[in-house]
């Protein structure tokens, strides 16, 4: 395996809230291979966004972050402000969920991209503006030179998200983190945005972390997958393996709750997500899991190899069901 461009080890994020300590991320490891698309899937509250916001240093001060986040060998957790600022927007960039609120409504779109360029590259405004137009063209915006002069509210949702992506790749980052980039968009537009992301990966060799709750998105573009639940990784592997023979009951539950051919009734996963102010001891999924035994709630399971996957289910072997039906 080639050296990971983004290496996260034992990341823990705790929020200090009025109602107590909220343990959003409880020991997460991530490896991002250069040039690959890593899908991170989980429901709301699983800690998937928080993990990567922590890596970017974009969490509020009430968050306590421990662990290690290495970008190309440089440690980000605890690094000084200047160090972090030189990484953000340059080697590590982020695309957010709602493109309308992510863009400043009072500045022109082109200017916002130019700002991104000029904060990390020594380029005069004229050249930066030309580069901005080029970027808009790469992400597929028609008449980029005219549209660069427009304001965010003059774009449709999908176009706006393209603008955000153009802004993010302006300085050719090594890793692009896309936090639910398609969730706020129409289904037809979703496919287009995913295609743009793929194009970016292929053209520039950018590694992409695609955070989503939508398995369809993962199936479409991801190379490998991390499944998160209750602030921890529960399963990880290549996208084919995960979809073909998932080993963790949660992943299996996710996959079988999708509508597919031949199904007459939908099978949601019973129960509710856990309270992260007082997370369950042991496996986070145990309270909802139909295969749980006492040992499951006894102590926090860690990821271990199982066939060609990494899984945290201690009963993976016993529960082996074979190929997915």
């Amino acid at each position: 395996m080639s050296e990971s461009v983004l290496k996260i080890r034992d990341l823990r994020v705790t929020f200090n809230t009025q109602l107590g300590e909220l343990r959003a991320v409880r020991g997460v490891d991530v490896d991002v291979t250069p040039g690959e698309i890593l899908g991170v899937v989980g429901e709301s509250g699983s800690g998937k966004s928080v993990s990567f916001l922590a890596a970017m240093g974009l969490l509020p001060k009430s968050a306590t972050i421990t662990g290690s986040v290495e970008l190309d060998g440089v440690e980000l957790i605890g690094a000084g402000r200047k160090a972090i600022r030189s990484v953000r927007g340059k080697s590590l960039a982020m695309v957010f969920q709602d493109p309308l609120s992510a863009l400043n409504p009072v500045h022109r779109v082109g200017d916002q991209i130019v700002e991104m360029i000029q904060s990390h590259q020594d380029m005069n405004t004229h050249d930066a503006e030309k580069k901005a137009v080029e970027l808009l063209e790469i992400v597929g915006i028609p008449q980029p030179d005219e549209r660069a002069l427009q304001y965010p509210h003059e774009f449709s949702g999908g176009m706006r998200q393209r603008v955000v992506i153009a802004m993010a790749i302006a300085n050719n980052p090594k890793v692009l983190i896309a936090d639910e980039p398609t969730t706020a968009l129409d289904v037809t537009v979703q496919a287009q945005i995913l295609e743009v992301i793929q194009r970016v990966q292929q053209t520039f060799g950018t590694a992409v972390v695609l955070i989503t709750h939508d398995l369809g998105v993962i199936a479409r573009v991801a190379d490998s997958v991390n499944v998160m639940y209750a602030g921890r990784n529960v399963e990880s592997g290549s996208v084919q393996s995960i979809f073909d023979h998932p080993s963790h009951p949660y992943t299996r539950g996710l996959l079988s709750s999708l509508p597919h051919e031949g199904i007459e009734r939908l099978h949601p996963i019973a129960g509710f997500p856990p309270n992260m102010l007082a997370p369950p001891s042991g496996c986070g999924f145990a309270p909802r899991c139909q295969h749980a035994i006492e040992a499951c709630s006894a102590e926090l399971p860690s990821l271990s190899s199982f066939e060609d996957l990494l899984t945290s289910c201690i009963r993976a072997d016993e529960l082996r069901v074979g190929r997915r039906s």
Partner: protein
Amino acid sequence: MFRFALRRSAWAIPTLLLVTFLVYIALRMGTDPLASYMRSNPRATRSKIAQYKELNGLGSNYVTGYFSWLQNFVTFNWPNSIKGSREVWPELKDAIANSARLGIAATTVGVSIGLTIGIFAALRPGGKRDVAVNTAAFVGISIPPYISAILLQLLFAVYWSKWFGNTLFPTSGVYPPGQDGFDLVLMLKHMALPTFVVAIQVIAVYSRYMRSSLLDVLNSDYMRTARSKGLSEFRILMRHGVRNALIPVITIAALDIGAIVGGLIITENIFDYPGTGKYFLSAFGNGDFPLLMPLMVIIVASVLLFNLLADISYAILDPRIRLD
């Protein structure tokens, strides 16, 4: 952009006419111009009275009366004040200059201090700075200008000289009586207290608005995007934070002009500062119609003007509403 400004300004003239018409009716009903004239000039001859009625448009009905007043007004054929038949314009001109000076000084000082304080408070909400600013602003709002004016007058006019033997800040007039010609230092000294009193109100209001507006903006997603670009904190604050936070503050600013003018009126009265405010109150007390109408026109015009300016700056600052 230009078209937008033009369209908005087009509304101003008819509104001005309409409002002055309403003011004309209100004053004519409320201050009984004829009776006040008779009171001040008990031995006026019949022709003088007729002339007074004519020049002030006090004809039989309100509509024609208004138009005849309007005609006289715009042709600068202004009737004289009922008090000693003094001409209105020369004194009014000076009064306007004095008030403008005071208003501009107070607004400049107040707005710049207020906005800055508001920004500092918003940066650490709930912190000691924030609480201090909030409380001070509250106190500022709760003390009406006439009270702060009185208390300051008390302090400086009576006690300061008693304790320190000299007058640091004079408490009346633009110049000491008998002053001839222009003396900047003296003028500033005389302006100090009134400016301070009006500025208190301005600071209190603007610091709170800036604080809450900036807090809102700081919680927006595009602030997070700006931070993810790796920009410096200062740049993020100014170009993204304050820039956006100014928009609602400007809207308030227009409506606030009325309050500032009101504060001016009160302050001028207490500090015996010869501005339009002082004139208004004395004219109102006398029922001096010929003096009141031009004053009201000025007040109405400035309110409408500032509303217009605020509308236009709002459009400049926020491109979203230019789709008008």
